[in-house]
């Protein structure tokens, strides 16, 4: 009886955030099947550790577990996602404003936009997903990704710059 209640409580509090969990998983893994597996595993872990959740909104907590599970899983599979080294200031800041009409055109191309986001390195991609798609605050993003607030802002800035440059054809110099 009690176990049913725990499950009922969990379903009520955490299952509504399934779309958020799947969306993050899908953008992290960039693969439909992996995303589903990741969500399954993350939910089971969340259920197991539900007692340690004390708060009112379980969405950031759940997304933290999705993200942690993803990196644990990466490590287990010995699959390495390259973390971008810091010297990506190879961009000339001057080029940012060039061709605004072209940018507007490209922004209307959903598939191009999707590819641009997919191509972003992990830590930039997740910042954009959490901010733009999940609408989380910098503070919440900082909590989920375990970095200071300033880092969240600078990652978003660099992510958006890269997106823009990808869209108008100035691809990032890969290292």
């Amino acid at each position, binding site marked *: 009886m009690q176990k049913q209640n725990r499950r009922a409580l969990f379903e009520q509090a955490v299952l509504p955030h*399934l*779309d958020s969990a799947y969306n993050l998983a899908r953008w992290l893994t960039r693969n439909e099947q992996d995303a589903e597996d990741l969500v399954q595993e993350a939910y089971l872990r969340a259920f*197991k550790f539900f007692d340690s959740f004390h708060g009112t909104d379980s969405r950031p907590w759940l997304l933290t577990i999705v993200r*942690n599970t993803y990196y644990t899983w990466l490590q*287990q599979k010995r699959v390495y996602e390259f973390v971008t080294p810091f010297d990506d200031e190879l961009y000339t800041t001057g080029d940012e404003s060039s061709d605004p009409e072209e940018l507007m055109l490209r922004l209307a191309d959903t598939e191009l936009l999707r590819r641009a986001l997919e191509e972003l390195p992990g830590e930039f991609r997740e910042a954009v997903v959490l*901010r733009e*798609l999940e609408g989380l605050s910098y503070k919440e993003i900082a909590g989920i990704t375990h970095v200071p607030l300033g880092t969240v802002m600078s990652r978003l800035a660099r992510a958006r710059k890269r997106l823009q440059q990808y869209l108008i054809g100035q691809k990032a110099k890969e290292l």
Partner: protein
Amino acid sequence: MNCDDMRRLLDGYLDGELDPIRNLEIEDHVQECASCAQLLKSRQALSSAVSGSTLYYKAPERLRKQLQTSLRKAGKGPADRPLMIWRLAGIAAVLAVMVLVAWSLVRMLAFASPNDGLIEEVVASHVRSLQAQHLVDIVSSDHHTVKPWFDGKLDFSPPVVDLASQGFPLAGGRLDYLNNRPVAAVVYRHDKHVINVFIWPSNHTVTADPQTVNRQGFYVSFWEKGGMSYWVISDMNEQEQAQFIKLLRSQT
């Protein structure tokens, strides 16, 4: 405000994360500076395009159903961490919920110690170490190789022990930074799990008796012994973690 400041604060402004004074400064600057105005417009357009619903992946319906099934199964089995309180309550659902809430509060208060910030740091370090290529700086399963590797890199000599025959092979070591100081990270594996053992000279932030908490899906254990603070974090289950700690403590 100049253009450099503007570029730096642009995203914070767009995301509504700046204070009102900064907002005004930016708006003033943008009225006078055409190129920054254009930059803002472009960035805004980009942000809007990305956050529009077209890039959002909703969960497929079958996933929802599959989840409900697997949760039902998980709920039916013996609870992984049977809380005495559940068995004692045994009565109305409402009472059980109230007790759960009180229990969580008590646990939260018990651990709202100076360690809370440090626990967060440890979790963050653990997750970061799982990301690309930064699990270990010295790759070796031989403690005779790993222990001396720390010489000259740290002002103390961390104990590194061999637990391979008990199922916890050494993966290697690396330097890390916790509690405002450089620390040793000795990494073990168990099946597919990664175990980070952080060690540094004791500064009495932890007790001699090991304590274990769970945070965001990881078990975090800490104690001090022989003048060293030990922090162990992994995604093993509670029993495996307890076994690892027992073995580690018996040899250090």
